[in-house]
């Protein structure tokens, strides 16, 4: 059970030029397509982040990102993304484990994975509304508690809080984790489990020493997907809490789309800041990835 060791024939003077060019041609479609439809707009975003309100070019928008208000909103966005990535990652993994390796009937797995497909994109206004119908002031669970004699909202609980927002975000984070980690769980060879048991390992030891190390690169990769997913989310938070939680995405919306403030350049600069945060996250994740790959010997 070897890890994906560094290939013996990657990039080097050992390979003929033609072969190396062919390698790059293999990724050309991707770069071409993303260049046309993704990087192009990002460059426009970067250019417009340099426009100030007088119409000229300057760095003043970036200076304005340094204000406590904007920093706080980045912090808030990062916190909620981390929280939902971790909680979503862990419980999503457990759910995926339950339906793939847990011995449950296979119908459960296909029902849950197709459901997850839908739920992963059930976000924005309908999701916020669904949770308001459930746990809002007039929600059915709130009513249930009232019937049992407990006034939820009086006791300090509110859906419109950080953890309330986390609870709602998890609705699309769990399914995402589940769907994306299923192929990895399927790839865990049964032989390894049997071999481990033959060598006297307990279930815990199997997971700790065999399965999780093998899965870690995929788990990390999927968690950064969850992080990015939450980081860029806007509609759900806005629908649930309005502008009360000034996430970075909401700040951007106010400057670009709103009826009150109108400094699109600042909005674009905040968005560029988000791109940078994402880039830093990828770097951290790559470092963690490479470490985890080393476990595999």
């Amino acid at each position: 059970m070897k890890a994906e060791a560094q290939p013996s024939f990657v990039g080097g003077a050992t390979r003929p030029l033609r072969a190396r060019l062919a390698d790059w041609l293999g990724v050309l479609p991707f770069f071409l397509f993303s260049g046309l439809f993704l990087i192009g707009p990002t460059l426009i975003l970067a250019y417009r982040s340099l426009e100030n309100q007088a119409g000229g070019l300057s760095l003043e928008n970036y200076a304005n990102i340094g204000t406590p208000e904007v920093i706080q909103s980045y912090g808030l966005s990062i916190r909620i993304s981390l929280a939902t990535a971790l909680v979503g990652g862990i419980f999503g993994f457990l759910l995926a484990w339950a339906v793939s390796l847990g011995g449950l009937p296979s119908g459960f797995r296909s029902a849950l994975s197709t459901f997850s497909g839908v739920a992963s994109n059930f976000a924005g206004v309908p999701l916020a509304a669904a949770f308001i119908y459930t746990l809002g002031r007039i929600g059915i669970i709130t009513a249930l508690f009232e019937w049992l004699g407990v006034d939820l909202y009086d006791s300090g609980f509110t859906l419109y809080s950080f953890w309330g927002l986390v609870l709602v975000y998890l609705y699309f984070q769990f399914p995402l984790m589940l769907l994306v980690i299923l192929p990895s769980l399927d790839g865990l060879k049964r032989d390894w489990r049997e071999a481990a048991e033959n060598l006297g390992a307990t279930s815990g030891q199997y997971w700790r020493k065999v399965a999780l190390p093998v899965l870690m690169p995929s788990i990390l990769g999927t968690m950064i997907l969850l992080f990015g997913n939450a980081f860029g989310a806007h509609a759900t938070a806005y629908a649930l809490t309005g502008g009360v939680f000034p996430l970075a995405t909401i700040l951007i919306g106010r400057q670009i789309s709103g009826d009150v403030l109108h400094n699109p350049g600042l909005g674009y600069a905040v968005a560029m800041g988000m791109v940078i945060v994402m880039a830093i996250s990828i770097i951290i994740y790559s470092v963690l990835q490479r470490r985890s790959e080393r476990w595999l010997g």
Partner: protein
Amino acid sequence: MTRHLKRQLISLLAVLALLAVACGGDTAVTTVAPVTTGAGGEMQGLIDAAKAEGTLSTIALPHDWCGYGAVIEGFKAKYGLAVNELNPDAGSGDELEAIRANKGNPGPQAPDVIDVGVAFGPTAQEEGLIQAYKVATWDEIPDDAKEATGYWYGDYYGVLALEVNKAEVANTPQEYADLLKPEYKGQVALSGDPLASNAAILTVWAAGLATGATGEAAAQAGLEFFKQLNDAGNFVPIDGNSASVGKGETPVMIDWTYNAIANDVNLAGNPDIEFAVPEAGKMAGLYVQAISAYAPHPNAAKLWMEYLYSDEGQLLWAGKGFCHPIRFEAMVAAGTMPADILAQLPSSEGAFFPTVDEINAAKKVVTEGWPTVVGVPVE
């Protein structure tokens, strides 16, 4: 290896072919029409030119806002033009962004006309995003509601009211001060985010004016009022809308009278909606129309304006939308405002109509202060 290379090239060619096919569409030439003043004789020429264009592209016109659904249908029926409605939920900022992004675009994504908050009129004009046009009834638009050379012009107005869901609220509050009473605990909401919604920011200012303060001090007083409201536990810090009132999530919401009436009609008693217009701090809000300088259908745009400012258009705004159309005073004086429509419009007597400069000054105070003064602790 070469076979694979070939397949790559073929797929690349296929993509390029796809793009080429897509590029082969019609390209209409955009013309920025010169400034004209509409007058009776030119109407037929305008109608013909508009019909030749065939379509009008609008943006940010929800059907339930001021009866725009009826207005659009009326326009379509009268002139046989198609109306291409872009994002009805767009904010004023979005509308300007749409014009900027679509400069020179002959396609259906470019808006021809915009309807924005009054503070956005001058901004759009400075950036050269709009073109001037004076409708036939130009003189009946009050001077302080239009830009003198015709770049932007008020279309309708309303006053802020306290809208309540009668199934949840027994006593309708009559003034802003009433909202502080304990019976409204956990019930009062703004109709949007004060940092993004025109109505919300004007509400904060209005609450300040209701305390007796004036000018910029009123904006600060408004912030204080909402701080009090929040501390008392009466303020629900979410963005209200017609649906949240109807559901009972935000049983008391401050919004334009026309939205409150429309909500009542929409819900048809399930539940009942009532509203009260506060006398202290009576705030009026004006929206303005403009034609995009890059409109792909400039003649259709002008015809639309003529329609909106004709008696027919103004009466639709009043009758179906419960808004005060901008020519209200003139029409009442001329007797062209039917009594039944007049009866259902709440009075705007004594309302405060802020100028653009006043709005901008108040905005500055509220937007800078809101996060800290009414700071809802995050977590």
